[in-house]
């Protein structure tokens, strides 16, 4: 672990040094070889929504602004970030005016204008199009051109945090000319455009083999004549995370492997070959155990895990919820399953720093079996002959489900043994990820149905503002038969006070006050035990030692600054 940290620190220092030196010209550093163990299916992120497609397409198509590795907005196709101070954001919070860079060209040589921005909005919000990024344009009433290089976005209601549409790799601008005949139901038919979008980014698609390999060439019309340093990029897909890490760290065949989430000890032996390094960046991913506040008893039939089933017989007791959290040693889980890509956390909103609370760290971050046992003793839960606590015929024996994944199954085992020490039993279960996260209302194994007492998975929020995310725990967001099991309040947590505070947050514009409210909401969820946050998960990727200029970013595509990457001479 120490060696890895040293290595990371070393590369950071090397990067700081090298970024001071002047860069070479465009296309002098040959071919950049990238490995995605999940192959890319399409280059149109609007038709896919998968992370791999969003990342791959971010080399070609760009948004107006991105979030950098520190969580700060940086203008890309816009000249600056519109704010209240510079007048870009209207005082009534009802409109946002973007000024576009005047001399940006598409890779086919035609000029980039406000029309393209408007078209992108129309493309993604068209009915029957099935645009995967539609949520980015939520609350947008109209997008209009003030002049060819000024775009005004109007909202249906005041938007305290307006940087969602046209910001970030999920919301890039596509060329109006190329996609003009591909709107709505016609979108999937435009295979040539979907596989090779014309963009403003550093690279253009030269060849696309779906679910296999993509070849990119440097964009001859890229706005910085000295970039990109690489003449071409080969993005190969397929395989698994361990062999992808091996191809960079051990055999040195590739320069960059995305998402090398492998057991830390396996990575350590690969690093010994000295051909590559690992870099991690922390966004908002939190692995958590959701506690079911409603009764999942199979005897209740269709009513199970809904409010109609009534509160959970054991988990309705706040002492039980807190004891379950106290019994867990998060550091061991991090060490065994996540290594450099994980930190113990007690927050559901772990980042950016401005909104990350530290209030509950004192009691929750460290395992305290004594306190947990005492809590349960005081609450009247008595150990039986089998070592499991019970009270009034209710046993502390929980069905613990998650998705199939080696790290998750190892974590389940660890948590089970930790809970055993406070007299809580657990029955482990896992379901294939495509079923667990599939959301099929007919399947009993989805995480929304929550036909278990506790369940574990990771979730996060896009961008740096947690407002929409925190609104997921509203009372009316509970999944149930009435909404086709589609709500996002998975624990079925309901607190009118929480609902009220979310309402205040949605009307507050001042960033400091927003951060304060977000922290309070986050603390409320942890303290009341809607869930047990376990690990703040980072993104972990492998890079060749010769690759420089990488700024690992968790807020945007990891390839966000691929234009600045170069090879150490």
């Amino acid at each position: 672990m120490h060696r890895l940290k040293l290595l990371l620190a070393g590369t950071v220092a090397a990067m700081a040094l090298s970024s001071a030196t002047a860069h070479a010209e465009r296309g002098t550093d040959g071919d950049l070889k990238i490995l995605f163990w999940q192959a890319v299916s399409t280059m149109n992120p609007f038709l896919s929504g998968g992370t791999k497609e969003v990342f791959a397409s971010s080399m070609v198509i760009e948004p107006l602004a991105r979030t950098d590795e520190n969580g700060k907005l940086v203008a890309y196709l816009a000249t600056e970030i519109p704010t209240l101070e510079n007048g870009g954001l209207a005082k009534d919070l009802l409109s946002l005016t973007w000024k576009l860079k005047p001399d940006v060209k598409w890779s086919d040589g035609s000029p980039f204008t406000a029309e393209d921005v408007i078209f992108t909005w129309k493309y993604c919000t068209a009915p029957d199009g099935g645009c995967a990024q539609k949520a980015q344009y939520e609350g947008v009433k109209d997008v209009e051109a003030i002049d060819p290089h000024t775009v005004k976005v109007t909202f249906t209601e005041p938007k305290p945090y307006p940087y969602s549409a046209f910001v970030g790799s999920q919301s890039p601008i596509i060329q109006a000319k190329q996609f003009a005949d591909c709107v709505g139901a016609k979108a999937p038919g435009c295979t040539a455009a979907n596989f090779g979008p014309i963009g403003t980014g550093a690279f253009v698609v030269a060849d696309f083999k779906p679910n296999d390999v993509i070849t990119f060439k440097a964009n001859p019309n890229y706005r910085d004549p000295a970039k990109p340093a690489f003449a071409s990029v080969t993005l190969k897909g397929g395989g698994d995370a361990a062999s992808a890490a091996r191809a960079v760290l051990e055999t040195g065949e590739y320069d960059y492997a995305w998402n090398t989430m492998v057991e830390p000890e396996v990575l350590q032996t690969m690093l010994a070959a000295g051909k590559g390094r690992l870099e991690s960046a922390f966004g908002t991913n939190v692995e958590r155990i959701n506690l079911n506040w409603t009764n999942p008893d199979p005897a209740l039939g269709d009513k199970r895990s809904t409010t109609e089933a009534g509160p959970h017989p054991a988990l309705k007791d706040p002492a039980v919820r807190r004891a379950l959290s106290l019994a867990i040693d998060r550091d061991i889980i991090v060490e065994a399953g996540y290594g450099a890509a994980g930190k113990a956390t007690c927050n559901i909103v772990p980042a950016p720093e401005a909104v990350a609370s530290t209030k509950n760290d004192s009691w929750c971050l460290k395992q305290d079996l004594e306190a947990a046992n005492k809590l349960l003793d005081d609450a009247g839960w008595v150990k039986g002959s089998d070592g499991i606590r019970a009270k009034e015929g209710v046993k502390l024996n929980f069905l613990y489900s998650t998705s199939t994944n080696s790290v998750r199954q190892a974590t389940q085992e660890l948590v089970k043994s930790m809970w055993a020490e406070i007299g809580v039993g657990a029955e482990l279960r896992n379901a294939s990820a495509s079923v667990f996260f599939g959301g099929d209302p007919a399947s009993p194994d989805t995480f929304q149905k929550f036909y278990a007492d506790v369940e574990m998975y990771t979730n996060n929020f896009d961008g740096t503002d947690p407002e929409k995310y925190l609104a997921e725990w509203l009372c009316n967001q509970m999944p149930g038969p009435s909404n086709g099991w589609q709500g996002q309040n998975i624990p079925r947590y309901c607190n009118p006070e929480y609902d009220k505070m979310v309402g205040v947050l949605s009307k507050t514009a001042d960033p400091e006050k927003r951060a304060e409210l977000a922290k309070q909401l986050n603390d409320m969820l942890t303290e009341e035990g809607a869930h047990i946050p376990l690990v703040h998960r980072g993104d972990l990727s492998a890079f060749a030692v010769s690759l420089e200029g990488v700024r690992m970013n968790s807020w945007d595509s990891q390839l966000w600054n691929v234009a600045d990457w170069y090879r150490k001479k």
Partner: protein
Amino acid sequence: MFTFTLRRLFFAIPTLLVISFVIFALLDLAPNDPTGDLPLTIPPEVREQIRASLGLDQPFFFRYLAWLRQFFINEPLNIIESLTGWQFGDGERMRVLSWATRSPVVDLIVQRLPQTLWVVGLAYLFGILIAIPIGVISAYKQYSIFDQIGTFISMVGYSVPTFFTGVLLVVIFSSHLQWFPSVYDTNLRVTDFSSFIAQVKQMVLPVAVLSLYNASQIARFVRASMLDNLHQDYVRTARAKGVKEKAVLLVHVLRNSLIPVVTVIALGVPTIFSGAIITEQIFRVNGLGQLLITAVQGADIPLVQTLTFIFAVLIVLFNLIADVLYGILDPRIRYD
């Protein structure tokens, strides 16, 4: 023989229709969802719209009939159009579209076929070429050292899964010795001698893994079949007539022993097309096997349906070919 072939072909049609329906129904019943792999930040109502845009909001029978139409009418018409340049109607017809890539399934299959045929096909061929001599010698010198070693290796090759041998070869020959690449480059075009060498190098490991597996399987068949024939009366008669031992073995025994082996080989040909899912995944050959497994994982139902159905067609077809070959090779068997 000809009427037999025709009759069998005719009976294949209802069989295949039933197969296509069963596959479709099974896939529909599977608790899998094309939006299951998307990040959780994409809200449920957007997922619902994505499903609707894929046609999932329509009833089961409607979707099945649409697939039948697309696969049996639209796709063949398209192939005829692209081959002959003729135009039927306005050329605008719904093709079988993959849900993950949103591109025509047939194009994906055409793109993947060469890699699979080269790697898996070559491994099958090598497997046969290695297996026959080993099987013959093993049987002829039964219980000799050669037989013991040969039987042992084929037992090991047959029992050890390819996901073990594949990773083992990568660790030895790619990580340590660095002789061969561990990732297959599907963009490589053979234009000169050096690119030919590169192509051979990247094919060595996957072909070796699959050859070992195929050879082990076939060698055991050849040996068993040879042993059956070696103790027959006609062999003793041939020897008594004073026929040379070489002729007895290679002309009399081998020819007769190959009859069941040829059937086994013919029945195995469809597996070349279905690819070697695990081996392709390990070496990133990205052929049909990898296409099928990513489609299964991503719930890309049109792609899974079409691929599985094509495999079903091949299996039915090669069963017929095996039967016909049997009749040709063995004069005792007559179908009419």
